Structures are given as structure tokens and as C-alpha cells.
């Protein structure tokens, strides 16, 4: 049913730290790997070795340059996947009932055997979180690794989304954002986690942590490396003066 639940018991989601993400794309690869080999249609590639390789991915890492009013520009790596919005516009537009938001944990999923591949949900998502699989003709999206997080066949430390498990810089955190005492909720409160495009009114569950302010003093040794003589003296001074004359 594509009507949204009025309330979900949990709000499972990700908290992504833009301060620590190093842009290695390991989460992209582990996501593609897990979700190709497990739940649902595999994430296909078209001409993977051709001139124009395209493929389905549920998680992508953009890199941005941010130029402050003064000072140096910053490079910020920006992973983006489904935000499992509370008011998910992708769900309500679905004509077949394939898209739904789970009452128990708030995960937004696609029932692939009901999906006709009309693509309207991808149009309704402001974030570009849904991609049509061109081989299967069904819509693919982040499942929050629903087949890992409850999977008792896996060791306990693996019961989190593949992207979170693999992140080498601990930039991705998984938990229940409805629980104020959860690790992720505390992180959001402490670091001022924010929503993407709040003006779209989607109420995303996933939050982003802002990059921390850069240190003013770049290097404590720098003052000791000031040039001693402004004007060259000795042989170099003579050379400088001679070359000036020519």
C-alpha cells in the first residue's frame, strides 16, 4: 500500500559524517557487492568495459569544493543514498503499491515483483536516490541492508548496512533515530546533524554531520621557518645584482 504510515515504531537510518569521509568510495563498492549478490534483482551494468559504462548503484559519492568568503577552499566528499524520508514522496506516487514504508522500522522498500518500472518514484525523489535497473526494468534503491541488519546467520558485528560495516574512516553510522538515547541520535545532537533540502518537506531520517571548522594555524612550526634575510647577500646577492643589470 502506497499510503504512508502515520507513525513508525523505529526510524532506522544513517548518519553520515562529512568531516571524516575521505571519499574512498569503499561504501559504493561494498553496497554494489552486497546488493548484487543478495536481496532482489542484481544491480546490473551496461557495457561495463565499453566506451560508456553505466550501471545501477544505490550509493554514490559526490565530491564538492566549498569556497568560504575568506581563506582556502575545502574539498568535501559527500556520500548519498536513500534518506528513508518520513514523508517519502516516492512512496505515495507509486501506482502499483510496489513502493512502501515499513511501519516497524521506517525503511522504504520496493517490492520488485509488483514494480512496473514506470520510473515515477525516481522523478518524485528530490535526491536521486532511486535508480532503474536497465536489465530488470525494476526500480532499485537502498534497503538499508534489510537482509543484513536482522540476519541472525551473520555474526553480530556484521548486522549493519554493508556501507557502514566497510567504511574505513567511520564516516557512516547506523541506528534508530527515533530513540533519543541511541548513539546516532546523540551524534546528531552533539554535532548539529542536518537534513538535505529541508525545503522539499520530505523529512529525511538520514542526517548529515557538518565538516568541523578548519584550524586557523595550519602548522605550529611555520613561524620558525620565516626567511632570515629578505635580500640575498654574498655570492647569490652578487649574482642577483648582476643578472638585474643585464
Amino acid at each position, binding site marked *: 500500500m502506497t499510503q504512508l504510515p502515520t507513525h513508525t515504531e523505529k526510524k532506522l537510518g544513517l548518519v553520515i559524517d562529512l568531516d571524516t569521509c575521505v571519499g574512498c568510495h569503499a561504501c559504493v563498492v561494498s553496497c554494489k557487492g552486497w546488493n548484487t549478490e543478495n536481496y532482489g534483482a542484481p544491480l546490473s551494468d551496461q557495457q561495463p568495459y565499453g566506451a560508456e559504462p553505466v550501471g545501477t548503484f544505490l550509493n554514490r559519492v559526490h565530491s564538492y569544493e566549498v569556497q568560504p568568503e575568506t581563506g582556502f577552499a575545502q574539498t568535501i566528499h559527500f556520500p548519498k543514498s536513500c534518506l528513508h524520508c518520513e514523508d517519502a514522496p516516492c512512496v505515495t506516487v507509486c501506482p*502499483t503499491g510496489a513502493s512502501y514504508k515499513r511501519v516497524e522500522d521506517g525503511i522504504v522498500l520496493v517490492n520488485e515483483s509488483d514494480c512496473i518500472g514506470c520510473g515515477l518514484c*525516481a522523478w518524485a525523489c528530490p535526491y536521486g536516490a532511486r535508480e532503474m535497473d536497465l536489465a530488470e526494468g525494476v526500480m532499485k534503491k537502498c534497503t538499508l541492508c534489510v537482509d543484513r541488519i536482522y540476519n541472525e546467520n551473520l555474526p553480530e558485528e556484521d548486522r549493519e548496512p554493508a556501507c557502514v560495516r566497510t567504511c574505513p574512516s567511520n564516516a557512516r553510522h547506523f541506528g534508530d533515530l527515533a530513540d533519543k538515547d541511541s548513539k546516532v541520535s546523540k551524534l546528531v545532537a552533539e554535532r548539529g546533524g542536518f537534513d538535505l533540502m529541508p525545503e522539499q518537506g520530505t523529512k529525511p531520517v538520514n542526517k548529515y554531520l557538518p565538516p568541523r571548522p578548519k584550524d586557523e594555524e595550519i602548522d605550529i612550526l611555520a613561524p620558525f621557518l620565516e626567511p632570515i634575510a629578505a635580500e640575498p647577500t654574498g655570492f647569490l646577492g652578487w649574482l642577483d645584482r648582476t643578472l638585474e643589470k643585464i
Partner: protein
Amino acid sequence: MHPAPSIIFFTVFSGLGFGLLTFLGFGKPDVSGFTAFVFFAVAYALAVSGLIASSFHLGNPQRALKAFTQWRSSWLSREACLSVAALVIMGLYAIGVVFFNTRIAPLGLLGAALSLATVFATAMIYGQLKTVPRWNHWTTPLLFLGYALTGGAFLAGQTSIALPLLLLLGVGQLAAWMIGDGQFAKAGSTIETATGLGNIGKVRMFEAPHSSKNYLMTEMVHQVGRKHRHTLRIFGILCLSLTPFILLSAFQFSHMLALAAVLLHIIGAVTIRWLFFAEAEHTVGLYYDKR
């Protein structure tokens, strides 16, 4: 947005078909027997071929029947239900008109209302999308209804109704363009709100997440042809509204002239519908520093 030929064909021709059905439902023209059969056949051919064309862009069209289930929340599902209801009711009405020379007026009016409701639902598939600010405006359903009624009046041979509608439609389309051009800025989404990094400074794309295009970019970050938008807008309005108006009002009426006017009108409608998609900008483009 990617202007898929199947969707352009679907929206233009099903709109024309349901527009013609609306006029037939009102008993305009008041025909029966074989003449009525031809009118209904044209209307059904347009409406049904449009609906069939729309299935060409589906990934799994064999499951299309499931699209009738979610009318409570989905405009696409509502459109599917309404179109079938309109076609069935108008079919019953047509049997009376064609074979028994009896016009059951309430059935015709109900069918006309359902036909217009179908066009409205088609428009709301686009009009509901907050992600495409140009579409997310009341002018979208109003114009879709305007196109259906004008084209319908034309095909139904109601020249006296078609003439003022032609001018109104032209003016309405110009107004929609003027409003639409400012809609994206008005919605307030920028690369800064998309990334949440605006409080640090000006954001620009440093490196794309993938080396070639992907589904999102071909579907929603379509920029081809926008540089010709002004030429196409002028061409579209001339074909859609002005030239047919002059042909029908300034010259002695003849069927050949009317046919030329209808064809021009349809060429104009297709051109402008192409622009409706090609000019529409989706917020996901902001993540790619594109519009």
C-alpha cells in the same frame, strides 16, 4: 527532464481523444449512425493509442494491471482507473448513439466529466512533483485541460467554440512559460541546500561520483535542445494557436482548410509538449551542479 517520445505521444494524443469524447458526451456534434461511429472511432483510437504508447516506457508492462490498485494516493493510478471508467461509460453511451439513435444524456455527461477528470489526473502526475518546480503549479492541470478541450472542439468540428479556445490556450501557454521560468528559483533549492554546505561558502562540483552518465542524468538532467527554446516556443505558439486561428477565422470554411488547421495545431501541441519536458529542471541536477 528527458522528453521520451512515448510520453509526449501519450499525453498529446490521449488528451485529444478524451477532449473529443468530452464534446461527444455533450452531444456536440449531435450525430448518430455511421457519422457518430466515425467520431467515436477517432476519439477511441486517439485515447487508446495514447494509453498504449504510455506503456512503452514501462520496464515491466506485463504487470500494468497492478497500476489500478493505488488510487487512494497515486495520481498515476487514478489516471488509469479514470481512463478505463471514461472509456467504458462513453462506450455504453456510444452504443446508444450509433446503433439505436438514442442519446442517453446523463450517461454522456458522466462520460464527459470522467474524460476531463482523466486529463486532469494525467496533468497531476506532473503537477504533483515538488521536485520539478516548473510543473508544480496550477497552470499545469489548467493547460492540460485547455489542450484537451481546444483539440477536442477542433476534432468535433465545433469551430465557434474552438476559435476563442485557440486564443485562450495561446495566452495561457505564454503565461505558463512566464511563470514557469521563475519557478525553480522560487522553490529555493540550490546546490547549497542540496548539500547543506551553504553555511561554509559557495559550493561547486569538484568531482562527479561516476565517470559517465547514469540513469539519473539521462532521465532527469536532460539539457539537450534547451538552447533552441525561444525558437521552439515561437514556432509552437504559431502552429498551436495563431495560424489555425487565422486559417479558420479569415478564410471561407472548407474541410481541407480545417484539416490543415488541425494538423498545425497538433504539430504545435507536440512541439510544446516536448518543451514541457525538455525545459523542466529536476532538483537532482543540483547534486551534479547542473540544472
